């Protein structure tokens, strides 16, 4: 039977709705329901489950489902789904280069700071308008102190003729390798070009090229390679695994690697997505990632045990001069840098 809605009843209903709506405004929206987190798998996903989901989100009634893939696949999915009214991910984990690219393409929401109260603890250097930083580390020099007896202080030490044949670079790290060379050859984070000639000098000296980080680890373990450029967190992991290496900080400055989390514009459950971002910035999960993976917390209230802080965090004097990659430059130049690396440097 159709319901007759007369004018008085309609006005009463509208008034009631407006009052109810106004009462709800200004109150934090409770997160619940299903939230899909697009993330890397392995330990990264396992730690999120144990330290973010189980203790902080499940009790709130948020059901977290992981969409596991690597960064490239996630970016392709986000770009393809832009026109969908409801996307497949509520939270997207990406490298800071990836999240910059997605934000430039209009994929992400501006982060609503009122819904992520823990953002006020995030280190200012790591903040962006479109992402919340999850973990970070800095680029350093790893060396074998039995072979490289004098601790390196600069990327220029890789070019020391004394160590010719004992220095290695990693194929998949072409971008950061050219960048490091540029930093000692008159270039900058916005101009990698001078790094190319500098790297050709290293090639003349017999630099070893390893395909992956894992191959580099094997070479460091066997002593075939004694010095390389690497992320500090990876160095921490390798030291824990028993590799004979030490970490040296280049005087040119420490360039950061940041892993971000963002909320796509077409996320289905934004309340739960923001609750997820807030939970991952809690001191508990931040400490857990530092302990398990050797990355530094992105917040100022993680309160790490002194030994762990010494291992994962960079010295305070370095923190003031942290360098952040010029994502706009990389977005424009990455293809030609890779092309040069493959056709000229590796030829």
């Amino acid at each position, binding site marked *: 039977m159709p319901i007759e809605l007369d004018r008085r009843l309609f006005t009463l209903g509208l008034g009631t709705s407006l009052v109810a709506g106004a009462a709800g405004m200004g109150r934090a929206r409770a997160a619940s329901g299903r939230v*899909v987190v*697009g993330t*890397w*798998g*392995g*330990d*990264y*996903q*396992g730690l999120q489950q144990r330290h973010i989901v189980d203790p902080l989100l499940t009790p709130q009634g948020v059901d977290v*489902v*992981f*969409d*596991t*893939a*690597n960064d490239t*696949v996630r970016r*392709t*999915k986000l770009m*393809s*789904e832009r*026109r*969908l009214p409801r996307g*497949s*991910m509520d939270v997207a984990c990406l490298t800071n280069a990836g999240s910059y690219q997605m934000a430039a393409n209009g994929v992400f929401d501006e982060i609503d700071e009122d819904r992520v109260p823990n953002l006020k603890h995030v280190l200012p250097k790591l903040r962006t308008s479109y992402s919340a930083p999850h973990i970070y580390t800095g680029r350093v020099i790893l060396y074998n102190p039995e072979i490289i007896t004098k601790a390196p202080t600069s990327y220029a030490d890789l070019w020391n003729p004394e160590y010719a044949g004992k220095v290695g670079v990693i194929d998949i790290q072409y971008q950061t390798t050219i960048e490091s060379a540029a930093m000692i050859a008159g270039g900058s984070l916005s101009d990698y070009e001078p790094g190319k000639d500098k790297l050709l000098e290293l090639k003349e000296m017999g630099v070893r090229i390893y395909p992956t*980080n*894992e191959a580099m*680890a*094997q070479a460091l*373990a*066997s002593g075939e390679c004694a010095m390389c450029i690497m992320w500090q967190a990876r160095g921490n*992991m*390798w030291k824990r*695994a*028993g*590799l004979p290496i030490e970490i040296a900080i280049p005087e040119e400055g420490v360039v950061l690697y940041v892993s971000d989390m963002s909320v796509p514009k077409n996320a289905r459950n934004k309340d739960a997505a923001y609750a997820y971002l807030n939970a991952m910035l809690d001191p508990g999960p931040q400490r857990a990632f530092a302990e398990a*993976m050797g990355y530094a917390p992105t917040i100022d209230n993680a309160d790490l045990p002194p030994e762990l802080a010494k291992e994962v965090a960079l010295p305070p004097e370095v923190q003031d001069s942290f360098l952040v990659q010029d994502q706009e430059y990389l977005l424009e130049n990455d293809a030609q840098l890779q092309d040069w690396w493959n056709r000229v440097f590796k030829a």
Partner: protein
Amino acid sequence: MVKGNSPSELVGRIAFHALVIGGFAVIVLPLVLVVWLSFVSDAILTVPPDGYSFRWYAEMFRQPQFMDGFATSLIVALVATLAGLALTIPASFVLARMAFRGRDAILHLLMSPLIVPAIVIGSALYMMFVEVEIRTGLPITGSVWGLAAGHVLLTIPWSIRLVSANLVGVNPSVEEAALSLGATPLATALRITLPIVWPGVVAAALFSFVVSFGNLEVSLFLVSAGETTLPIAVLQYLQWKINPTVAAVSVLQIVVVGTGLLLTSRFVNLARTV
């Protein structure tokens, strides 16, 4: 081969055996190395290793993503194999038995998943699913059906080739005899032709299963949230950790595929079929 005793025949025989042994070594060596690595106790391999243990097998069973991935890969591979055969057996009958305009074009089209890189197939399928969802509102992106459909595509070239190659070898007079004795074309296909080409069908099923079970690139795009396949779980594990756990997982995969091969060879002589 008749054995001769002249020096040139002797040299030829030694060279032949050396080639055979060398060929087998190239094929078997990676498998042997993977099995060996899975028992090495060091996290990062050093030669000679410090010792041997089962710790990486224990680690494998502690990681839920490997077990979940194994189950998903198994189910998807079985579904893709069966669906692939349901499509390709009738298609092979048509392609092998009938002459019509465009026959070669269709055959090449069915072989195209072998030519196009799998990562391109995966991303293209994903984009197509998104477009279909935009136009129809059907939630097919990230559904288990999308993943199974992608894997069916991968199995088609293998099944088509193996089944139609066996069909070509069937003597048409046997089928004609059945038809002339009153059997319907369907009964002839099911009761006469299919039993003759059965080894080809089994081989097609085996190849389809192996191709689907080990596929990474297509699954990366099509797997739904909360699901993972074994190859994805291995890749993702390696992203953050290096230790021989993935070698232990690979041994599990070798055992599954190897068991499938051994069981199949009890019923069908694969060496004569493939």
